[in-house]
């Protein structure tokens, strides 16, 4: 493998791994903030104990998200220096906004929240966790704006002399039509994971620890399930919007998602397609008529461009070469994203039904505890693999091919070192993190203490059991 392949593998591995923690963080902090607000409003102790329990799980999770996020920021310069030179003038601005507006907010207020339980007035302490929520939302928006620019570059001009893209309109970058649909889609998808996580943990406790904190975990189970269903509806609606934008700005990605080789009017949605290995035509498929036309254009008889005709027009536009992404990969990740996401929503409906009107859940439902959060988590991963590999062979669509972005001076030995280093490190950390998660989950609400009163002004600081 050459430097380019190694750098791509490293980006894929470190980014997918980072994103295992992102959706849980985004949603769990908001759910924790909601639980704490419920405690603040009602004074019911179960909400406080759930806040501390899920808050601790959130902290275990965000620690991994933060440290693996560091790699993301360094990696652009380390492995993709020519990309950085090409896009820095445009792409740097949302990254700078993310750092200054979001990361400072998150890190500072998380410290205040962890250590501030007995030091801050309740109302201020509650505001701290909401500031963290705001930070995660801003962070998501800015980084998605940066990514959306790579899918659909706007608000720039190309400077041929410097060989780079230059920002002409920051507002256009921040209101790119791609980010406007991608942001809600990503956030709803994150809430599917967080809701499923809360419900999965709760079902495990209800079945395996009957009679222990049943009331609190019933609340958590039903809350989590409702979040999964509501967020699932949001994912579907925003995904539908996203499909239409994608058809408009990246028609090749839509065609690859459907393995649609020839243009169709009206186009059918493929349930199952097998193509030839070189990806030039289909061999066998099962299709539902009119559905793809509707998904892509909003009309049942709209025309959807096929891979082969797009390839021809791109050759005329950009010169000879292949402009097709890896079609089996885009086709299957697109389907798996939808499939496993729908499965999670179905499980959530089932759990809600099984626990209706105070019913105790069936013992067998404990087997859903683990798949329930993992399904939407993998839907997130499939979605990202789809949208990023579907952009290929472009790094910035229509402007910069992936092969032109890699660091020219970096050796394959260096990239291999960091690739292996991060992979081994991330593997070990995954084991440590999972064991700590499971341990904390098994511990249940027993470790959560009631709220202490804020200290008097003369007390010295004491280390807190909640923190270190």
């Amino acid at each position, binding site marked *: 493998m050459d430097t380019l392949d190694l750098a791509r593998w490293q980006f894929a591995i470190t980014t997918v791994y980072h994103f295992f923690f992102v959706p849980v963080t985004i949603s769990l902090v908001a759910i924790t903030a909601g639980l704490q607000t419920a405690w603040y409003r009602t004074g019911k102790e179960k909400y406080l104990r759930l806040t501390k329990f899920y808050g601790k799980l959130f902290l275990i999770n965000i620690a991994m998200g933060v440290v693996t996020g560091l790699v993301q920021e360094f990696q652009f*310069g380390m492995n993709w220096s020519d990309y950085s030179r090409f896009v820095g003038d445009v792409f740097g601005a949302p990254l700078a906004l993310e750092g200054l507006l979001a990361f400072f907010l998150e890190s500072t207020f998380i410290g205040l929240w962890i250590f501030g339980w007995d030091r801050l007035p309740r109302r201020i302490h509650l505001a701290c966790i909401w500031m963290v929520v705001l930070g995660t939302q801003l962070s998501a928006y800015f980084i998605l704006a940066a990514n959306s620019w790579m899918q659909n570059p706007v608000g720039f001009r190309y400077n041929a002399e410097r060989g780079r893209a230059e*920002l002409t309109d920051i507002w256009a970058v921040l209101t790119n039509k791609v980010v406007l649909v991608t942001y809600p889609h990503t956030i709803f998808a994150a809430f599917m994971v967080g809701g499923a996580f809360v419900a999965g943990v709760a079902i495990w406790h209800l079945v395996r620890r009957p009679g222990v904190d049943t009331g609190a975990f019933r609340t958590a189970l039903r809350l989590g399930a409702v979040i999964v269903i509501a967020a699932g509806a949001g994912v579907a609606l925003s995904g539908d919007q996203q499909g239409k934008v994608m058809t408009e700005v990246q028609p090749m990605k839509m065609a690859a998602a459907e393995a649609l080789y020839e243009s169709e009017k009206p186009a059918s949605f493929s349930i199952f397609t097998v193509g030839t290995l070189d990806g030039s035509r289909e061999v066998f498929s099962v299709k539902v008529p009119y559905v793809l036309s509707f998904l892509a254009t909003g009309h049942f008889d709209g025309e959807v461009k096929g891979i082969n005709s797009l390839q021809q027009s791109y050759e005329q536009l950009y010169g000879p070469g292949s402009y097709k992404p890896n079609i089996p990969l885009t086709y299957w990740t697109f389907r798996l994203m939808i499939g496993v996401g729908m499965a999670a929503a179905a499980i959530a409906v089932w759990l809600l039904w099984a626990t209706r009107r105070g019913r105790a859940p069936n013992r067998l439902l404990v087997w859903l505890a683990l798949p329930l959060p993992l399904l939407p988590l993998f839907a997130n991963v499939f979605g990202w693999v789809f949208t990023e590999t579907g952009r290929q062979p472009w790094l910035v669509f229509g402007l910069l091919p992936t092969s032109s972005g890699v660091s020219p001076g970096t050796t394959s030995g260096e990239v291999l070192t960091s690739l292996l280093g991060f992979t081994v490190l991330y593997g070990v950390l995954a084991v440590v993190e999972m064991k700590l998660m499971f341990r904390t989950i098994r511990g249940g609400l027993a470790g959560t203490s009631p709220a202490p009163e804020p200290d008097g002004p003369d007390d010295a600081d004491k280390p807190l059991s909640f923190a270190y």
Partner: protein
Amino acid sequence: MELTTVWFVLIAGLWIGYFVLEGFDFGVGMLLRVLGRDEPERRAVVTTIGPVWDGNEVWLIVAGAMTFAAFPEWYATLFSGFYLPLFAILVSLILRGVALEYRGKRDDLVWRSRMDWLITVGSVVPALLWGITFANLVRGVPLDASHEFVGTLGDLLNPFALLGGVTFVAVFVAHGAIFLALRTTDDLRQRANRLASGTGLVAVVLAAAFLAWAQSLRGDATSAVVAAAAAVALVVGLVANRLRREGLAFAGTALAIGLAVASLFVAMFPAVMPSTLDPAGTLTTVNAASTPYTLKVLTIIAAIFTPLVLLYQGWTYWVFRKRVTVEPVAVEAEP
């Protein structure tokens, strides 16, 4: 002032903020197993930086992001050229961050001891490597006419850079010890104070040697004055430490670090990465910069939000201003 100069100053300011703030939490991390003799003491030591270390580290992230946005060429050449040191810094910061967050999540002495080792190593290694990196920035690195780094790892490990690395470690140890004396009580406070005196002497000697060498390599009257001021601030800080004026001592080391880093940036200006080969390869605030429009946008953003960040980060330090006492804690050995 040109916007490119404004952004050079702002990025220098972000690095100064990073080293002043993370400097003491690196120092605390290095001293964790030296000053903390048992679990209750170590817990107290970690708690002094608990609420703030993550926010301190964000200064690094923002310095990186701002460099990417304002000086893409600088970001690209620096990060790809210093590949292996930056990789090692990342690994160390990952282990350190996870260990800091996970140490208290289990009531298990073996677990905590392991995490403490990771915190120590994860504090020494980045301090050393940042010193090596900044020394090389001042000294210059082999860049070709297209600003591409053409050196090897061996080029980065020159004697001047190694002195820079050791200096960063020594200064952060003293800075961390003084911070601990300021933030703890009783016996721990006394020991931190004594340790700061001893390590402070080493730090002064190394820092003086490093800054003088840096001035002889690249520098002018202004940078020499700033470097001398840094040395004076460090000495004032250590004298204050002897006199048990802990607040003044911490202000002294904080100022010393800030001025020392500033002197390095002043010495470099207007270069951001001087080339030791072709002078045309040197990256400057002008040829590395983004367009005036982008710099204008960034300036507006920074002008609005930086004061806000300083305000709420300052408030955090105010909220957690009280000293941390050593409390007996119920930690059981793993059954």
